[in-house]
C-alpha cells in the first residue's frame, strides 16, 4: 500500500493556499467601473508600452470602423467587461485543464480495458487514482458554468440576452445554446463520465478478491460502452464548454482537437505519476518498457494533436472566409507568442526530444518532456478561451498562475489520496502476468 507522504501533502496544501490567495487577489483587483478599467490599462501602457493604443484597440475589437461617434464609451465598456472576465477566465482555463487531464486518463483507461491490453494492467491503479479527480474537478467546472448561466461572469457571450436580441445568428442557435439546455447537457456529460469511473473502479477492486473473471468481463463491457458515450459527449462538451465562447465560429473537427489535447496531457500525467511512484520504491514490476510505451504515446499523440491543429488552421487560412478566419487573426495578432509558442512546445519539442527510442526509456527525460507538453497544452486551452473572453487584455499574471497553482495542488491532493486507498498492483487481473513480463 502506498502512503501519501507528508511532504507531498504539505506541498499540495501550500499550492492550494497560495493559489487561493492569488485567485482572491485577482477577483479583488477586478475593476468595477469604466474609470477603473481605463486606469488599469493606462498604467500598463505607461509601464510596458507594449499594448496598442486605444484607437487600435477599437479597430481590433469591433472590426466595424464605421461608427466613430459613441465609439469610445462603447469601447471602454467592452474593456471593462474584458477585465472583469479576466479572473474568471483564468479560473476556468485552469479548472478545465486539470479536469481534462483526468478525463483524458479515463479515456485512455477505457481503451486499455476495451482492447484487453496486456501491457498496461500494472498501471491501472495509477490511472484509477488520477481519474479520482474527475468528480471534484468536474464539479468545480460545473459550478463555474452555473455561475456563467447565472450571469456572475460573461465568459459566454451568447448567455447575454441583450447580445442575442441584436444577433440573428445567435437567435438561430438559441434552441441549442440556451442556459437551461446547456446545464442539462453538462450534467449528463459529467454524470455519465463519473458513473463509468465509479463502476469501473468498483469492478476493478472487486476483481482483486474474486475467484473468477466475471468482474473483469463486466468491466470490459462497461468500458466498451463508455467509449461510445464518451466519443459523442466529449465532442459535444468541446462545443459547449469551449467552442461556444466564440459562438459565431465553428470547426467540425474541434471535438477531435480537444480530445487530442486531453489525451496527450492525460498520458503524460500517467507517465509522470508512475515515474514518481517508482522513484519512491513502489510499482516494482513496472519496468522501462512500460515507460517506453507511455512515452511512445506521448510522442505519437503530440503529432496527432499537431495534425489536427494544422488541419483546422490550414483549411480556414486557405479558404479565408471572413467569419471563420477572424478566429485565427485575433490569435495571430493578439496572441502571437502563446499561439506559436504552443506549437513549438506541443510539436517540435516532443518531436525532437522523444524521437530517439533510447530517450523514451530515460525517466528524467520523459519527465522533462512531460513538463513542456503539459505547459504547452495549458497554453492550448488558454488560446481557446482567452481571445473570446478577455481579448487583447490577456496576460499570464497573478490570476492565471494562482489558478494553475490552486488546481495543481487540488489535483495532487485528490490523486495521491486516491492512490492510498487500494494496493498499487492489481492482484487478480487476468493479464497481470503478461504485464509483468512486458518487454520491448
Amino acid at each position, binding site marked *: 500500500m502506498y502512503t501519501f507522504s507528508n511532504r507531498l501533502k504539505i506541498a499540495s496544501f501550500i499550492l492550494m493556499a497560495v493559489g487561493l490567495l492569488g485567485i482572491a487577489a485577482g477577483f479583488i483587483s477586478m475593476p468595477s467601473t469604466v474609470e477603473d478599467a481605463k486606469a488599469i490599462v493606462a498604467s500598463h501602457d505607461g509601464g510596458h508600452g507594449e499594448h496598442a493604443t486605444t484607437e487600435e484597440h477599437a479597430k481590433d475589437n469591433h472590426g466595424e470602423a464605421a461608427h466613430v461617434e459613441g465609439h469610445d464609451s462603447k469601447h471602454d465598456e467592452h474593456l471593462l467587461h474584458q477585465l472583469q472576465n479576466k479572473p474568471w477566465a483564468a479560473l476556468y482555463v485552469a479548472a478545465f485543464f486539470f479536469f481534462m487531464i483526468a478525463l483524458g486518463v479515463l479515456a485512455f483507461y477505457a481503451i486499455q480495458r476495451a482492447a484487453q491490453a496486456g501491457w498496461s494492467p500494472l498501471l491501472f491503479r495509477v490511472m484509477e487514482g488520477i481519474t479520482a479527480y474527475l468528480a471534484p474537478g468536474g464539479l468545480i467546472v460545473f459550478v463555474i458554468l452555473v455561475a456563467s448561466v447565472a450571469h456572475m461572469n460573461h465568459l459566454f457571450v451568447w448567455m447575454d440576452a441583450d447580445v442575442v436580441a441584436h444577433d440573428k445568428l445567435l437567435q438561430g442557435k438559441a434552441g441549442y445554446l440556451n442556459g437551461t439546455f446547456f446545464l442539462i447537457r453538462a450534467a449528463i456529460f459529467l454524470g455519465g463520465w463519473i458513473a463509468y469511473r465509479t463502476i469501473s473502479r468498483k469492478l476493478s477492486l472487486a476483481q482483486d478478491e474474486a475467484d473468477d473473471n466475471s468482474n473483469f468481463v463486466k468491466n470490459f463491457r462497461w468500458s466498451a460502452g463508455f467509449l461510445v458515450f464518451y466519443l459523442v459527449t466529449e465532442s459535444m462538451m468541446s462545443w459547449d464548454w469551449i467552442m461556444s465562447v466564440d459562438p459565431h465560429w465553428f470547426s467540425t473537427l474541434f471535438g477531435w482537437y480537444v480530445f487530442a489535447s486531453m489525451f496527450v496531457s492525460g498520458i503524460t500525467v500517467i507517465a509522470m505519476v508512475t515515474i514518481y511512484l517508482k522513484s519512491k520504491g513502489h510499482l516494482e514490476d513496472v519496468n522501462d518498457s512500460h515507460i517506453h510505451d507511455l512515452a511512445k504515446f506521448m510522442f505519437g499523440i503530440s503529432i496527432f494533436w499537431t495534425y489536427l491543429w*494544422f488541419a483546422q488552421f*490550414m483549411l480556414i*487560412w*486557405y*479558404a*479565408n472566409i471572413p467569419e471563420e478566419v477572424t478566429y485565427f487573426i485575433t490569435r495571430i495578432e493578439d496572441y502571437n507568442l502563446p499561439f506559436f509558442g504552443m506549437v513549438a512546445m506541443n510539436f517540435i519539442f516532443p518531436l525532437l526530444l522523444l*524521437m530517439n527510442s533510447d530517450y523514451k526509456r530515460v525517466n528524467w527525460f520523459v519527465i522533462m518532456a512531460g513538463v513542456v507538453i503539459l505547459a504547452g497544452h495549458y497554453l492550448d486551452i488558454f488560446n481557446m478561451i482567452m481571445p473570446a473572453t478577455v481579448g487583447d487584455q490577456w496576460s499570464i499574471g497573478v490570476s492565471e498562475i494562482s489558478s494553475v497553482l490552486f488546481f495543481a495542488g487540488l489535483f495532487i491532493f485528490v490523486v495521491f489520496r486516491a492512490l492510498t486507498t487500494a494496493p498499487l498492483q492489481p492482484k487478480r487481473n487476468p493479464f497481470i502476468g503478461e504485464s509483468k513480463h512486458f518487454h520491448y
Partner: protein
Amino acid sequence: MASKVIHALYNDDDILMLAVKKVKAAKHHIEEVYCPFPVHGLDKAMGLAPTRIAITAFIYGCIGLAVATVMMNFIMIQDWPQDIGGKPSFSYLENMPAFVPIMFELTVFFAAHLMVITFYMRSKLWPFKQAENPDVRTTDDLFLMEIEIHDNEEELLALLADTGAVEINISEK
C-alpha cells in the same frame, strides 16, 4: 568451401526464443534464424548489433523535407507565381501553410522508400532473387536455427536435442 551446418527446427516462437537463449548461453555462434514471421526480441536474444536504420531514416526524412522545400519554392514562388485564393505567391514563408502537406508527404516518401532500398542493399536482396532459405517449411509454420559445426557435432546435437527442437538435421552448406 563447404562447411557443415546443423539445422534445428522448432514449431513455436516461444520455444525458439528459449532455445536461442540457451545456445547463446552455451557460447555457440548462431549463424542465422529463419522464421515465418518476425519474432519480437529475437535480434536481442541472438546478440545482433542494434539496427542503424533509424538513423538513416532520420537522414532520409531530412532530405525529403529539403527536396520538398526547394521544389515548392522553385515551382510555386520562383518559376511561375500564381495568385491562389487571394494569396499571391511572393514569398515561401507567407505561403508555407499551403506547402506543409507536400513537405510532410515527401518527408515520409523519402524516408520510407530509401529505407526499403537501404534494407534491400544491406541484406543483399533484389527483385527476382532466388530464396536462400534452407528449408521451405520456414515459410509456413516452422522456425529454423542454423549453427555452424566446428568439430563439435556431438556437443551441439546434445544441446539442441535438449531445447525442444522438433527436428535436427545436419547438412553441407
